[in-house]
């Protein structure tokens, strides 16, 4: 197996992406605070400027984990395994944040912290899948088996997302409970609100790429250190 030594070179792209993301976050923060309140939800709508980009980052993380897991199984390059793990880590963190910010938004808007809304339920399932991913990663010592097993969990877990979404959606629609539309207030969006949201979405996208690359570099150095210790 050839050891990839990209850490020896200076990686200019990651800091640039990180800086761009942080700058975007600042601009987005300013725009979100200066945007007008929503007709229905008032100032509460500001949670959306964080909640939606967080959920968006989760979708990126699902695709990233799926892509890197498949890439690992095809190319057998340990770098892809580290990237998949980095992406899953972000997925776990941000799906938890999405559920949390959603609960904080849901309580004043709908009066409940939790509802069996398809997206919400899917995110909860996603958290459980990612937790399993990391528990298994920590349980397996052999690096190659660990990479294979986590790639498998990453792929199976990612395929599961659309299926669980569909199943929960049907389950609810036949249940005839109260219908809560999470997209309320976003249909006729004020241009300044849309701009703030878009800037935040862009910032979170840049941050996702930067974080995955950064985490990949850290994991690579850890792996190199471990290899140096063992001979």
């Amino acid at each position, binding site marked *: 197996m050839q050891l990839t030594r990209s850490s020896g070179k200076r990686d200019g792209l990651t800091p640039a992406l990180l800086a761009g993301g942080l700058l975007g976050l600042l601009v987005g923060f300013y725009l979100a605070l200066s945007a007008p309140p929503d007709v229905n939800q008032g100032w509460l709508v500001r949670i959306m400027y964080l909640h939606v980009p967080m959920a968006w980052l989760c979708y990126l993380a699902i695709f990233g984990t799926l892509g890197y897991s498949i890439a690992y*199984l095809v190319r057998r390059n340990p770098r892809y395994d580290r990237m998949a793990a980095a992406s899953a880590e972000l997925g776990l963190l941000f799906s938890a944040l999405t559920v949390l910010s959603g609960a904080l938004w849901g309580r004043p808007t709908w009066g409940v912290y939790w509802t069996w809304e398809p997206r919400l339920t899917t995110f909860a*399932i996603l958290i*459980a*899948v990612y*937790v*399993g991913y990391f*528990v*298994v990663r920590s*349980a*397996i010592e*052999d690096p190659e*088996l660990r990479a*294979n*097993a986590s*790639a*498998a*969990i990453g*792929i*199976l*877990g990612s*395929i*599961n997302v659309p*299926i*669980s979404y*569909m*199943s*929960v959606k*049907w*389950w609810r629609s*036949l249940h005839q409970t109260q219908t809560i539309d999470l997209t309320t207030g976003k249909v006729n969006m004020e241009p300044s609100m849309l701009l703030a949201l878009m800037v935040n979405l862009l910032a979170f996208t840049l941050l996702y790429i930067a974080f995955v690359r950064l985490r990949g570099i850290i994991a690579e150095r850890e792996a190199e250190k471990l290899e140096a210790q063992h001979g």
Partner: protein
Amino acid sequence: MRSLWLALRDLTLEFRGRAGILSVVFFLAVMLFILGLAFGPNPQDLQRAAPGVFWVALAFAGSLLASRAFGLEIEDGTLDDLLLTSGSREWIYLGKLAFQLALLLGVGVLLLLITAGLFYLPLGPWPWYLLTLVLGTLGYAAISTFYAGMLARLRGREVLLPLLLFPLVVPVVLSAVRATGDLAGGVPPGEVAGWWQLLVVFDVVYVVASGLLFPYVLEG
């Protein structure tokens, strides 16, 4: 072909041993009994809870049975012999899947009868229950067999297996519960077909994906 022989061998061993399968069945009977006490004694409440109770109980049984798929191989050290056979390793997965499916179906039918008795589940549409049972257990076994094989030699696999398994089978349990509940409530099978379609999609996707991934995760 080899897969079927493997499944047949495992079934023979399982029934010769008896202890494993019997303890699973009795565990389920006790579980249903306790759940019946918890939800009862009003027949309407019990009937409403029946489909959920049935599938959740089957899911628990499945996670117990799944560790049996590779447990004996590890105990007797025969997994290495299986791995030594020529050709690709997908057939091991398919054989174990057939074994798991047979066990789950057997336990499922028994469980259905017990649920019908304790929870007043009407057995009228039983052919459709069986269809739901086949589709549901196939999807469940596809994942449980895969993870059981992956975790076969790991320490703490008894805890890891349900942790990995249950989040993934949410769509299976959900669709199967709804299909069973609708059938029990007298909904014509034509209107339940959507749930079966979802189960079929799930089964196809996961049998194919797990079969393809299985050779990678088998240790050794």
